[in-house]
């Protein structure tokens, strides 16, 4: 594990910066059930950070803590050098953390373009009166936002379905539209909850390529949850391994692969 705070360059030439987000001693309980138990880890600027673990390990709960959907009972969340107070999910989004969902949460009745445009809502500043009159600022803003959205749509190769209502799209494309919406917000941190769940091999390869490209082109920091071990090991710079709400490993893919606890968790050794 690289525990230096200085930035370094990866073998493939990307720059990993200082700590962007730090989770300190997070504990999350639902009634008597402990979903996350005293977990600490950090996410560094520009890296792809994976959270893996067997079913029910608390990975999604962790992502929900980062994005403000769940409030941990104990622990601190630090983002860009500041401790985060109690926040609502929409405030987290406004701080520059965008996410996708395991079970896809898109606006089914809207077109792909409109869906991706909603990702720009945090960037629209003009008030209602200005928009009502449709003058200057509001109009320029709309044009600039629209231009950015078109770039994202081109980037993710979904031009052909721009005007299609999302409800009519197949699963794999919906996942891509959701990624486009999150990307449209120009997030400082992008959270992906099982971006490849339910996909076939080709779709998985496409999605992996997009995740790497996003990280490479925009320098977006990405934290992702994934089941597919092969994919995780190929994609990520560092991996957190969770099991039964606890952190059992943290490090580069190679380090994690050799960790006895991790092997036990995945192969199923009796817990004592």
């Amino acid at each position: 594990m690289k525990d230096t705070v200085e930035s370094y360059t990866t073998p493939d030439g990307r720059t990993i910066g200082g700590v962007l987000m730090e989770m300190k001693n997070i504990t999350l309980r639902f009634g008597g059930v402990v979903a996350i138990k005293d977990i600490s880890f950090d996410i560094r600027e520009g890296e792809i950070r994976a959270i893996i673990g067997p079913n029910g390990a608390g990975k999604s709960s962790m992502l929900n803590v980062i994005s403000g959907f769940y409030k941990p009972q104990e622990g601190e969340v630090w983002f860009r050098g500041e401790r985060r107070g109690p926040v609502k999910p929409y405030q987290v989004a406004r701080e520059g953390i965008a996410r996708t969902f395991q079970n896809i949460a898109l606006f089914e009745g809207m077109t792909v373009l409109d869906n991706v445009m909603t990702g720009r809502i945090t960037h629209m500043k003009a008030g209602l009166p200005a928009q009502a009159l449709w003058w200057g600022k509001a109009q320029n803003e709309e044009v600039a936002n629209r231009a950015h959205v078109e770039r994202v749509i081109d980037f993710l190769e979904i031009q052909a379905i721009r005007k299609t209502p999302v409800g009519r799209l197949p699963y794999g494309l919906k996942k891509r539209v959701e990624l486009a919406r999150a990307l449209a917000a120009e997030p400082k941190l992008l959270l992906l909850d099982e971006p490849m769940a339910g996909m076939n091999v080709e779709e998985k390869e496409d999605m992996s390529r997009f995740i790497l490209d996003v990280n490479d082109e925009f320098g977006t920091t990405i934290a992702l949850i994934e089941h597919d071990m092969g994919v995780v090991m190929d994609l990520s710079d560092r991996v957190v391994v969770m099991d039964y709400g606890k952190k059992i490993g943290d490090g580069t893919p190679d380090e994690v692969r050799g960790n006895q606890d991790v092997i036990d968790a995945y192969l199923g050794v009796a817990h004592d």
Partner: protein
Amino acid sequence: MPDQLLFAAEVTLNGLMAGVLYALVALGFVLIYKASGIFNYAQGVMALFAALTLVGIMDGQVPFSHLINAIFGTEVHHFGWHVPAVAAILLTIVVMVVLAWAVNRFIFRHLVNQEPIILFMATIGLAYFLEGFGDLMWGSDIKKLDVGLPQGINLWIDETTYNAFGYGFFIDNLDIVATVIAALLVIGLVIFSQYTKQGRALRAVADDHQAALSVGISLNFIWVLVWSVAGFVALVAGIMWGAKSGVQFSLSLIALKALPVLMLGGFTSIPGAIVGGLIIGVGEKLFEFLIGPLVGGATENWFAYVLALLFLVFRPQGLFGEKIIERV
């Protein structure tokens, strides 16, 4: 042209005008239902409350005067001034926004993720509370509402049609104004929801709450906004209805006529509310005119409901509603 046909044409026109008022009330329902899944039984009472507040402010009435007088033994009823209509309307809008905020802060914020039936019961409670509150605040007497809208027969239409067909149509000026205002309101709402940031956020919330949160939309803000807009629509409906037949507590019953309108138009469609309102308005007037004499009249009381029932059997999602298809 034969007389019967001319009568029918006049009846149709008048039906259209009546339909506009139904449509206005139905519009308020649709707005809230779309954004929050709440069927707001109190929409009719909101129109009443808005109209009461408007009259009260215009006449310089002291709010809660009965209560104040009973507690302090005073005799205050009026401030002794009259507020011009435009200023009074603006003040009433402020009151409706405060009401929207209070409704969300004290009721619906505590009922997030509850069953629709519970939300519906809450709005019934709200309806009776608001009716009593309006009574306490402004008194229960029938009030005259005059914001300076033209009223009475439109002579130009009367004369033109008389010269053309030998029979003058009776169209009330107020109905024409109501139609124009309703049309402007709908155009405004469509522009708002299609082209503004808040409108886009509103459509997003209507579609998926979780996704809306994740792109940075505050649900509370949108709910207050949508209840404010519904309050504004209620005010417009209240003004029209009040100008026509005085501000009285039976006004809250117009909410019931909006139900068949919604079943026809679909609960989630703004154009549906308008078209549904017009169909019910024209339908019940024409039915009364053509079939009424054969069955002893008073068909206006039930025609809308029977029509709605037929729609429920053959097209449950309404004319413009979204068909619900669940994947299994």
